């Protein structure tokens, strides 16, 4: 029981470390973050921030517009909305977390979660298989343990670890 509790605590900690921690930090957007949130429309296939055309007719004005809006204190959402109004949703470098697009974000984690539950259930069934096989092969539990077997088990454990 104690082991199981420890395992649950550990799983929660790992989840927090991996997902909740980074999301929980609320920091104001930087130019770089905003530029990375937009896809360049010059067909380079990169974000506005990474566009490798230094004279790019899209990335350069877009960077200026972002800097201007940030200076005026515009929020991340407002800046992105201004670009979406002008160029459509394809200008965003990641899907919005709303409506059908929510499926893009949720599905991978949902699949992994289902997989994890599946693994848990299967492992439990297989563990039961083993217990029943062991129970069937040892008719009585009162038989004293063979000291050699005990030693072998210990050594095997040390060897395998």
């Amino acid at each position, binding site marked *: 029981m104690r*082991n199981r509790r420890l395992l649950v605590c550990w799983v929660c900690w*790992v989840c927090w470390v991996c997902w909740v921690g980074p999301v929980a930090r609320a920091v104001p957007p930087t130019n770089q973050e905003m530029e990375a949130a937009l*896809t360049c429309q010059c067909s380079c296939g990169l974000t506005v921030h990474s566009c490798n055309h230094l004279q790019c007719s899209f990335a350069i004005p877009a960077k200026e517009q972002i800097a201007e809006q940030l200076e005026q204190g515009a929020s991340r959402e407002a800046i992105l909305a201004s670009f979406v109004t002008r160029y459509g949703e394809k200008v965003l470098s990641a899907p919005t977390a709303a409506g059908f697009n929510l499926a893009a974000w949720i599905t991978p984690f949902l699949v992994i979660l289902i997989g994890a539950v599946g693994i848990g259930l299967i492992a439990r069934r297989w563990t039961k298989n083993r217990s029943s096989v062991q129970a069937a092969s040892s008719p009585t539990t009162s038989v004293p343990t063979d000291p050699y077997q005990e030693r072998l088990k210990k050594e095997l454990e040390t060897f395998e670890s």
Partner: protein
Amino acid sequence: MTHLGTLALYLASVLAVYAIVTSLWGVRTRRTAWIASGTQAAYAVGGCVVVASIVLLHALLTRDFNVEYVASYSSSTLPLHYTVAAFWGGQKGSLLFWTLIHCFFTAIVLFQNRTRNQELMPYVTATLMTIALFFLGLLCFITPPFERLSFIPDEGSDLNPLLQNYWMTIHPPALYLGFISASVPFAFALAALATGKLGDVWIRTTRRWALTSWFFLSLGNLLGGRWAYEVLGWGGYWAWDPVENAAIMPWFTATAYLHSVMIQEKKDMLKVWNMTLVILTFVLTIFGTFLTRSGVISSVHSFTQSGLGPYFLTFLAFILVVSIGLLLYRLPDLKSENEFDSLLSREAAFLFNNLILVGLAFATFWGTIFPILSEWVRGVKITVGPPFFNQVNGPLGVMLLFLTGVGPIIAWRRASWSSLRRQFTIPLVVGLALGSLLFVLGYRNYYAVVIFSLAGFVLAGILAEFSRGTRARQVMLHESPPQALGRLVGKNPRRYGGYIVHVGVVLIFFGVAGALFTIEKQITVSTEQSFEVGRYTLLYTGITERDDAHIAAQVATVRVLVDGQQIDTMHPEKRFYKKQNQPTTEVDIRPTLVEDLYLVLGSYDEPSGLATFQVFINPLVSWIWIGGLILILGTCVIMAPNPAERQALALARASADIRGQAVAE
């Protein structure tokens, strides 16, 4: 000469059909002569494809611009090595190149198994020849590489300048080798399903092929990253481009397979799962090829729009139907006596590692196809770019790194709390100490601290494993430390080679985490003007021009100073490829183990003498390439001849034979 190439491809198609039919007919009628004839035909297919490839290479090297492919992808001024690379630089040539490698691998497999696996081989031949037939069909009827123009152009259009880089001469072949070698385990898996020989033999026979495929996929992806880093000039090496995604997806599933297959070998478990992973890896290689060639996505790597999409989709559907059909048919025979001792065991760690790896493959697949889904469902075009993949795959990658550390040191079967304490204390202390040290030093980037701590945890665990094994040999066999270490690895190359691969993977993570501290600056300066970036002072001293028949280039000279002392001179270029009428940037990189100074000449205004530079300071990037080299070394160790493995294979074959005889009696 090109008629010979066309004829060779048609003949190869006919022979491939013959090989498929005779192999299967031979099994049905139990006549070995037919099976042998099918094998010979498969060799002959390879011969024909070699002839066709030589013809195309000859056309490229002799600049036969009447051949449409040669005129489209080469020019009279294209250097020799890029002229050879033009073989796989275009759609048609790359399909022929694919077929050539496939036939080469087929020949090796047939030769290796000329006296072995006699029951499996007819099906292996039929499967490999079916794959070859698909590509030959495309080459004969859809994208003929020897098509001639109605006129002879004076000059060719040249190879895309982005492809005129030395990494490009080895990156595509490496990736193709990885993609195509995945067809061998797939063929054996189908053969095992078809024959019902579902024991260890096919797994052990194809272990090296699976490893070869994984090795070349790793190499191909790393070389692709290096190419992007040097050529694309945006300071990075991985942009989660759809074609990059297509290359990494089979790598994820192949990695999962290489781990889960160990459980099958040790405990005879996960047979269905391993079969699924082999099929999935092959399907993903074909899916990747479909993505690159169908035109459904736009990418810097993809070939021009073509009508190949429906053919690839049909082939993909055919593979899935046959594979899933056979898998379902054999499902009752694949059930094993699954026994599991505990969730605190190496088996469980491998299961979770598989979950994360397949999860990564799925997340990448999902993100890649989501724009298409969005267009179908909502009629709205959207982009799924790096921010999505970084947010979804990033945490999964961190979990994978953690499991990379757990897997090698946790016990098989059941880890007791005492053994966990014994095995994990040092790695945990090292990991936590590293994390705390970084925190105390002022590093507040959450991901970086976690990744560096985990890197320390994994490396400490692996080093402890090497140290324990070496010390044990020293004590028991009185060997010197180097001798003990060498023999430790030599006695169990698979285990310790795997650890070396893990070290490589950790270093790659370490290098990738460096991207979180990138510094960049864009600046316009005049001659003899200097500017500061990070700890560097860069002094721009002027531009020189270079001009030849192929390229016109403006080469900037920038002196690099640290604390007033000149440490280097860099020469970023702006190139203009005359035939393609296309300007490109040629970055200059000053790599060190701590950071790369990455300099791009964006533009140069001749009248004013003003030059615009983009400068990146990319920390730890070199560790990605060093990690790649260690990964190669580790794979070589794993693949080293291993008597124990040969013995295991012989044992598996013998027990399969005994089982077969028992069933016959």
